[in-house]
């Protein structure tokens, strides 16, 4: 035969791995990414743990020399902390009890039944996402304040009730649950509708072929299949509610009801005494532990799902049920929901912003309507500064987050065998902030930077850094799944064409990730603009942003001004989202 005889090497040592080059740009950037992510995520968390066994009342961790567990014993034995846990429990359970069934029902109606006006309803459900939750709390106060709330006034006169309060009281745990529950619906709807869409309808059809009716099929096939997805949604939103600050902060302030997240804030911003960093960090550690445990379960539940989703990315054409006579009540229900949860608070917000002081709509107050606040507000230099700061913050945070997220996901997805362990570490650490409530990140960042040689305490950058840390989890998740859809050969083709790693990243990978990058950019920008708790922990008069401005205006009774700023913020968010959408669809139609 024609086999060319080739001399065989005497002994070739088997090396598990070797680096034959001087550090390439790629390994350099990998190292930098590892360090940055570790620094951003781990240092604050370790600092929080350290603080929880160090600080005592009114002392920062560095000022105290004793190591003590007294902070924890105080939390668990003090009579003042027990109500916090009970309130958190009630608040979480109540919000989910209101929000999730509503979201499931809406998702089922819109995904699985033939309902008139489907597209309209589906879009309107999402509208509250552009309104900061701080503002929906303010709007609901205008509607359900026991004395001057519009709904209460209308109900009192309609039912012929005497007295000048009730029937509803927003300043209660029930009120908090109601507002928070409604607040969950848009994002829960999105998540649940997606799993309805991902479900293979032939599984249901098979049950129909076996002679089962709609009810039987729903009970014995649809729900069991959906169970992991619903359970995952439940866990996810438990964490969301525990983390929620704006609504319990605003409503609970008046009602003197504290949950874990607001308790951490008030422990460090006490109205009466000195800040208790020990209590705050112990509470923060406890919330963190609970969230970690929950997210770990969430991960376990969704790990399988995600793998499944990447294989069958095809859209199924779902089986849609004809509702028959039920179509009318179903539509009425949807329209009622949209009226109550979307339209009413939004209109109320607008109304409040054009009133010099709050008054329920009446002929008299209609006469007082003026856009004066919209002009006057600009004369306040702090408002201009807050708007400017907010824009800078949104821009800086979203750019920093995107850059970091793209790098993280690149090193995670295109991992090499030799660095498999490091890539796994990177994936885990970058997802960790998902389990860290914003208020806890804010607290931890105080500990890191108040004494740290990096002089960013009291600047806008510390807020940007905290937000980058918090939003890295979502962002890197999104870019990771986008990158997994990009065939590795597209990048290898660039390498074979002689392009070094940086050029491949710039000319091939980034452009191919453009849709995900734009999405993440908008998501982070809008969240950064509306975020309250991290900003509240870290701002000072120079670095005031719109959300903290609204918070302090509200506390000072400047309701109309708060509403004006709220309307501006909502408009800005909507503009960004709609603008991004238009930009994207134009680009899409070009190709």
């Amino acid at each position, binding site marked *: *035969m*024609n*086999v*060319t005889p*080739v*001399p*065989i*090497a005497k002994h*070739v*040592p*088997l*090396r598990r791995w*070797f680096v*034959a*080059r001087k550090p*390439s740009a790629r390994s350099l950037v990998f190292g930098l990414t590892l360090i940055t992510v570790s620094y951003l995520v781990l240092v604050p968390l370790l600092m929080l743990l350290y603080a929880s066994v160090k600080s005592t009342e009114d002392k920062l961790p560095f000022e105290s020399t004793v190591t003590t567990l007294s902070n924890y014993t105080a939390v668990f034995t003090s009579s003042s902390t027990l109500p916090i846990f009970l309130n958190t429990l009630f608040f979480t359970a109540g919000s989910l009890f209101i929000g999730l069934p509503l979201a499931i029902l809406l998702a089922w109606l819109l995904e699985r039944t033939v309902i008139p006006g489907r597209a309209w309803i589906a879009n309107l459900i999402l509208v509250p996402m552009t309104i900061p939750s701080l503002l929906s709390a303010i709007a609901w106060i205008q509607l359900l304040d026991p004395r001057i709330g519009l709904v209460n006034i209308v109900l009192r006169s309609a039912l012929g009730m005497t007295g000048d309060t009730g029937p509803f009281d927003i300043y209660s745990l029930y009120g908090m649950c109601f507002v928070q529950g409604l607040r969950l619906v848009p994002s829960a709807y999105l998540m649940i509708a997606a799993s309805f869409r991902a479900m293979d309808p032939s599984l249901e059809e098979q049950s129909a072929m076996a002679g089962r009716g709609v009810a039987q099929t729903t009970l014995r096939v649809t729900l069991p299949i959906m169970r992991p997805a619903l359970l995952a949604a439940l866990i996810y939103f438990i964490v969301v509610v525990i983390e929620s600050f704006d609504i319990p902060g605003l409503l609970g302030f008046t009602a003197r009801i504290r949950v874990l997240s607001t308790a951490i804030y008030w422990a460090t911003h006490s109205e009466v005494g000195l800040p208790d960093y020990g209590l705050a960090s112990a509470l923060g550690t406890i919330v963190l532990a609970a969230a970690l445990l929950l997210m770990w379960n969430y991960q376990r539940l969704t790990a399988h799902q995600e793998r499944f989703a990447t294989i069958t990315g095809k859209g199924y054409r779902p089986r849609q049920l004809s509702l028959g006579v039920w179509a009318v009540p179903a539509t009425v229900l949807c329209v009622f929901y949209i009226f109550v949860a979307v339209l009413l608070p939004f209109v109320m917000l607008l109304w409040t912003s054009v009133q010099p002081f709050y008054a329920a709509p009446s002929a008299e107050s209609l006469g007082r309507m003026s856009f004066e606040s919209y002009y006057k507000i600009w004369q306040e230099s702090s408002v201009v500064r807050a708007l400017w700061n907010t824009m800078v913050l949104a821009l800086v945070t979203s750019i920093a987050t995107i850059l970091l997220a793209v790098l993280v996901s690149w090193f995670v997805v295109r991992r090499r*065998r030799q660095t498999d362990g490091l890539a796994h570490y990177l994936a885990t650490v970058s997802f960790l902030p998902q389990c860290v409530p914003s208020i806890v990140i804010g607290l931890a960042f105080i500990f890191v930077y108040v004494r740290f040689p990096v002089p960013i305490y009291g600047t806008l950058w510390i807020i940007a850094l905290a937000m980058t840390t918090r939003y890295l989890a979502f962002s890197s998740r999104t870019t990771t799944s986008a990158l997994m859809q990009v*065939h590795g*050969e*597209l990048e*290898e*083709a*660039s*390498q*074979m*064409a*002689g*392009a*070094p790693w940086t050029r491949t990243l710039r*000319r*091939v990978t980034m*452009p*191919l990730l*453009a849709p995900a990058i734009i999405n993440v950019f908008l998501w982070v920008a809008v969240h950064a603009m509306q975020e309250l708790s991290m900003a509240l922990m870290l701002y000072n008069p120079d670095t005031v942003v719109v959300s903290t401005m609204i918070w302090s205006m509200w506390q000072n009774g400047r309701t109309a001004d708060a509403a004006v700023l709220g309307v501006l913020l909502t408009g800005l968010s909507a503009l960004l989202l709609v603008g991004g959408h238009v930009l994207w669809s134009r680009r899409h139609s070009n*190709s």
Partner: protein
Amino acid sequence: MVPASFEFIASLSVIGVRDLVKTFPGARGEVRALRGVSFEVEKGELFTLLGPSGCGKTTTLRCVAGLEQPLSGEIRINDRIVFNAADRVFIPPEQRRIGMVFQSYAIWPHMTVYQNVAYPLTSDVSRKEIGGRVAAILERLGLGPLGDRLAPNLSGGQQQRVALARALVAQPQVLLLDEPLSNLDAKLREQMRFELKALQESFKITTVYVTHDQEEALALSDRIGLMHEGTLLEVGAPVELYLRPAHKITADFLGNANFIPAHVDGHEKQLGAEMLVATPLGNFVAQRGEWQVGVPAQLFFRPEYVDLLDDADGAVNGLNRGSGVVERVSFLGNSADVIIRCGEIALHARAHPARLPAVGKRVCFHVAPSSCIVFAG
């Protein structure tokens, strides 16, 4: 740097691969994907790595490209060592000056055809020259009017040409093709096969071609290297490999084969043949093969070398002859696949479509000694 082996460097081949070992992490420890693969590719030659999926052919190609780093061995392109495990040499793919066409074509969807093809040039060539060279290669591949199109708006065949143009535009020393035709439909595949060959010959570019399609390999290659479970089993020209395989695996993988259990009786000097084997079909003389007297062996011949004789010819008895009943005839268009039942054995034969034997009829057949090979085992 001291070359690992002097003879190796002195040879005239363009690609030299020696003792390549590559492992992948598997469910139970390391999986040896390549177990010492060595071959050389001469200048201007089209060398095909052929084998079933999982045999290591794509891994070998990716090692040559630099997209995978082998555990040990050496890879040389022209007189440059691009990989040597012992000396810790690894030249990254972007510095190897290799053109490559991927199985998925990997056309960048966000760039036009022109941008795709110009991509390998932008670093050291003037703008004007880039334009000229891209236009020339697009023209050469019949893509002239498509320069402004975006990749998603191209047909499969056009995408394949764009991938080729992109691989060739920088005038690389070596072209690597990873199953480039497997994503095309049957008709287009056949057409592209000839175009590819013509193109490769006119560019006189040294090419390594990976495929699992034996027909493709036979039609295109100057030489074929047959891979099996991480080793390069045998290397040879297509005709040689097809007609005179040295291994049973090669015989089995290339084309269709009949294997008849046999044992070797001895030499038949009279017929000028090398060996006589006894089979259930009768005694056969084979011109080639490995054998040991008394040890079980297998007689191999291809269906198309089975001559079906008219019954009238009679002479059933005699060397290299047998008879059986036609069990099934599958009409394939340009020929028919005939299965002849001879007791335990179902023999495959090819019949001319104009002379299809009737099912159930007894037929006699003859296989020339020159078409018979005996394999041990």
